[in-house]
C-alpha cells in the first residue's frame, strides 16, 4: 500500500497509457510526463510568488498582499490576469525578432532542465547517462537569452544590465560546475538517478547524504552561492537592481513577455534547487530510516520548498553586492575553495573509514577558509559599525 | 547514398560556407565566426566517421572531437582578445582598412 502511494504517479501514467495501441504508447507516456511537469511547476511558481511576497513582507515588518482571497493567496490569479491583459509595448527602434525570441528561448531552456531531475523513485523524465551534463548545457543556453533581451531593447540601461548579468552568470557557472564535479567524483556517475541511489543508504538511522560530509557541506555552501548568483537573486541581483537599473535587461518588456521572464527566473530557481537537493541533500530519500514510509516525491518537493524558503530569506536579509565585489568573490575566493574541495573529497575517499578522515578534511577546509578570508579582509579597513542620522 | 556520405556532404557544405565567410567579410570578428564554422564542420566529420567506421568502441573519433571543441574554445578566446586589442589601437575592425604594415 505504501509502495503504491510512493509510485502513484507512475502507476497512474501506466494505467492511462494502457488504453492506447502499442505503437503510440511510448510517445504518449513521455507526453504525459511533460504535461505534468509543464502544469505542475508553473502552479508551484504561482504559489511561490505569494509565498515570497508575504515572506519578504514579514521580514521587512509589514504585511504583504492581503486583499485578494484569504491572506492574499489568490494574488497570483490577479497578477496573471494583469500580465495577460496588459498592452504589449515594443519600442520602435527595438530589434523585433530578437526582442520576441528572448523570453521564449529562456523559458524553453529552463523547462528542458527539468527533464533530468529525479522527482521521486522511478520518476525521472529522461534518465540519461550524462544527465548532469545535459542540465548544465541547458543552463548555459539561458545566458544567451539574457543577452538577447538586453541588446534587442536598444536601451543603454538594458544593455548594461544584460552585460552585468552575463558576466556574473558565466563566472558563477564555473563555480556551479566545479562544486557539482565533486559529487560526480564521489558518486562515480553523471546520471542523477545514480547519484541519488548512492545517497540512499542509512547507517544508525542517519542517511548518507553528501551534505553530512565535510566536502559535501563546503560543496553545498558553494553550490548555494553559485545558484543564487546564477538565478540573479539577492544578494547577487545587481543586473535587475530596481533601485539602480530600472529593471535591468527586462526594462522594455511588458505584459505577457515580462510574465515569461518572471516565470523563467522562478523556474530556474526551482530547477537549480532541485539539482542541489539531488546532488547534496539526497534527492527523494527520507532523512531518517524510520521515515521511508512517506512517499519519495513528498520528500523531494519538501526539500525543494525549503530551498526556496532559504532563497526568499536571503533576499530579505542580505544587502546587494556590487558588481566588482561579486566578481572578485567568485574568481578569487570561491573558485580556489572549490578546487581545494575537490582535493579534500579525494582525500576523504582514500583516508580510510574512521574519525581521522573527518578531522583531516574539516581542518583543511576550515583552515583554508580562515586563511583566505583573513588574506582578503586584511586590506579592507572595516571598523565597528557607525550610524549617521538625519539632522 | 549511405548515411555517412550525407553527413560528409553536410560537413563539406558547412566548411565551404565558413570558408566563404572568412574570405569575403570585412569585419574581423566575422572572419573568426567563419573559422569557428570550419572547425565545427571538421568535428561533424570526425563524429560521423566514428559512428559509421570500424571499431567505434575505441572512441577515437569522439575523443578527437572533444579535444577539438576544447582547443577551438581556447583559440576563439585568444583570437577575440587580439581583435579587441587591434580595435583599441586602430579604432576599427575593418580588415580592408588594415592593409599597411605601419602600425
Amino acid at each position, binding site marked *: 500500500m505504501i509502495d503504491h502511494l510512493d509510485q502513484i504517479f507512475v502507476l497512474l501514467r501506466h494505467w492511462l497509457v494502457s488504453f492506447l495501441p502499442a505503437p503510440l504508447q511510448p510517445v504518449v507516456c513521455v507526453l504525459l510526463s511533460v504535461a505534468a511537469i509543464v502544469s505542475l511547476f508553473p502552479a508551484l511558481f504561482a504559489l511561490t510568488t505569494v509565498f515570497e511576497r508575504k515572506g519578504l513582507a514579514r521580514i521587512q515588518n509589514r504585511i504583504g498582499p492581503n486583499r485578494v482571497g484569504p491572506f492574499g493567496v489568490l494574488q497570483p490569479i490577479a497578477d496573471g490576469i494583469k500580465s495577460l491583459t496588459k498592452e504589449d509595448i515594443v519600442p520602435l527602434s527595438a530589434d523585433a525578432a530578437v526582442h520576441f525570441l528572448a523570453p521564449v528561448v529562456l523559458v524553453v531552456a529552463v523547462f528542458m532542465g527539468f527533464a533530468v531531475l529525479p522527482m521521486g523513485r522511478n520518476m525521472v523524465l529522461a534518465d540519461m547517462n550524462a544527465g548532469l551534463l545535459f542540465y548544465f548545457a541547458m543552463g*548555459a*543556453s539561458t545566458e544567451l537569452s539574457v543577452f538577447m533581451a538586453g541588446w534587442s531593447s536598444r536601451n543603454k540601461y538594458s544593455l548594461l544590465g544584460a552585460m552585468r548579468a552575463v558576466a556574473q552568470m558565466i563566472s558563477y557557472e564555473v563555480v556551479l560546475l566545479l562544486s557539482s564535479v565533486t559529487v560526480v567524483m564521489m558518486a562515480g556517475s553523471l546520471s542523477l538517478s545514480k547519484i541519488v541511489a548512492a545517497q540512499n543508504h542509512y547507517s544508525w538511522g542517519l542517511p548518507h547524504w553528501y551534505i553530512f560530509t565535510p566536502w559535501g557541506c563546503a560543496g553545498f555552501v558553494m553550490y548555494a552561492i553559485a545558484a543564487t548568483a546564477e538565478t540573479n537573486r539577492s544578494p547577487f541581483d545587481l543586473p535587475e537592481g530596481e533601485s539602480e537599473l530600472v529593471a535591468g535587461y527586462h526594462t522594455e518588456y511588458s505584459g505577457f513577455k515580462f510574465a515569461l521572464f518572471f516565470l523563467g527566473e522562478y523556474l530556474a530557481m526551482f530547477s537549480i534547487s532541485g539539482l542541489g537537493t539531488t546532488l547534496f541533500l539526497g534527492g527523494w530519500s527520507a532523512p531518517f530510516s524510520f521515515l521511508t514510509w512517506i512517499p519519495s516525491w513528498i520528500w523531494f518537493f519538501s526539500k525543494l520548498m525549503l530551498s526556496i524558503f532559504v532563497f526568499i530569506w536571503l533576499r530579505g536579509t542580505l544587502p546587494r553586492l556590487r558588481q566588482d565585489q561579486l566578481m572578485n568573490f567568485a574568481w578569487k575566493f570561491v573558485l580556489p575553495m572549490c578546487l581545494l574541495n575537490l582535493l579534500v573529497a579525494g582525500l576523504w575517499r582514500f583516508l580510510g573509514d574512521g574519525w581521522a578522515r573527518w578531522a583531516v578534511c574539516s581542518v583543511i577546509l576550515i583552515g583554508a577558509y580562515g586563511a583566505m578570508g583573513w588574506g582578503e579582509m586584511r586590506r579592507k579597513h572595516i571598523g565597528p559599525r557607525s550610524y549617521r542620522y538625519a539632522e | 547514398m*549511405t548515411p555517412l556520405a550525407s553527413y560528409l556532404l553536410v560537413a563539406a557544405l558547412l566548411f565551404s560556407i565558413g570558408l566563404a565567410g572568412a574570405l569575403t567579410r*570585412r569585419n574581423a570578428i566575422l572572419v573568426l565566426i567563419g573559422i569557428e564554422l570550419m572547425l565545427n564542420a571538421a568535428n561533424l566529420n570526425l563524429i560521423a566517421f566514428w559512428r559509421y567506421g570500424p571499431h567505434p*568502441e575505441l572512441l577515437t573519433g569522439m575523443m578527437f572531437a572533444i579535444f577539438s571543441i576544447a582547443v577551438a*574554445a581556447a583559440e576563439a578566446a585568444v583570437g*577575440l582578445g587580439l581583435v579587441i586589442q587591434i580595435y583599441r589601437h586602430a579604432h576599427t575592425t575593418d580588415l580592408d582598412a588594415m592593409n599597411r604594415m605601419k602600425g
Partner: protein
Amino acid sequence: MSFVFYLLAALTVAGAFAAMLLKNTVHCALALTVAFAGLALLFLNLDAQFAGFAQILVYIGAVAILVVFAILLTRGSETPRDGVFSRTWFVGLLIAAGVFATLSWAVLQSVRVLPHETAVPTVTVLQIGNALVGRFVLPLEIVALLLTAATIGAVIVAMHEKEGQQ
C-alpha cells in the same frame, strides 16, 4: 536518410548561411548560435551524447557569448560605411565554391567503399573517462597546458596598457 536528419541539416546550413550573409553583426552571431545548436542535435542523432552536450555547453554557452561580447566591445553593431563584403569578395567566393566542389566530388566518388551502417555503439561516460586517463592521457595533459596558456595569453593580450589612459 530520415526526415530528422534532413530537418537538422537544413537548420544547420540555414544558420551558417545566415551567419555569413546578414548585415548586422549581432544577428550573425545569433545565427551562428542556431548553427551550433543544429550541429549539437546532429551529434545527438549520431549517438554521440557526450559530444553533443559538450558542444552546447562549450560553444553555445561560452564561444557564442565570447563572440557577442567582442562585437559589443568593438562597436561592431554599427553598420559600416563601405558595405559588409570586402573588395575581393568574388575571388573568395570562387575559392570556397572550388573547395566545396572538390570535397563533394571526393565524397561522392568514394560512396562505394565507405563503410555501411554498423550497430549503435553504446558509449557510457565511464568509458569516455577511462579512455581519457588511459589511452588519451597525453592529449589530455597537453590540452590542459594549452588551456592554461590560452587563459593567460587572452588576459595579457586583452589587458589595458599600463601607460596612457586607464
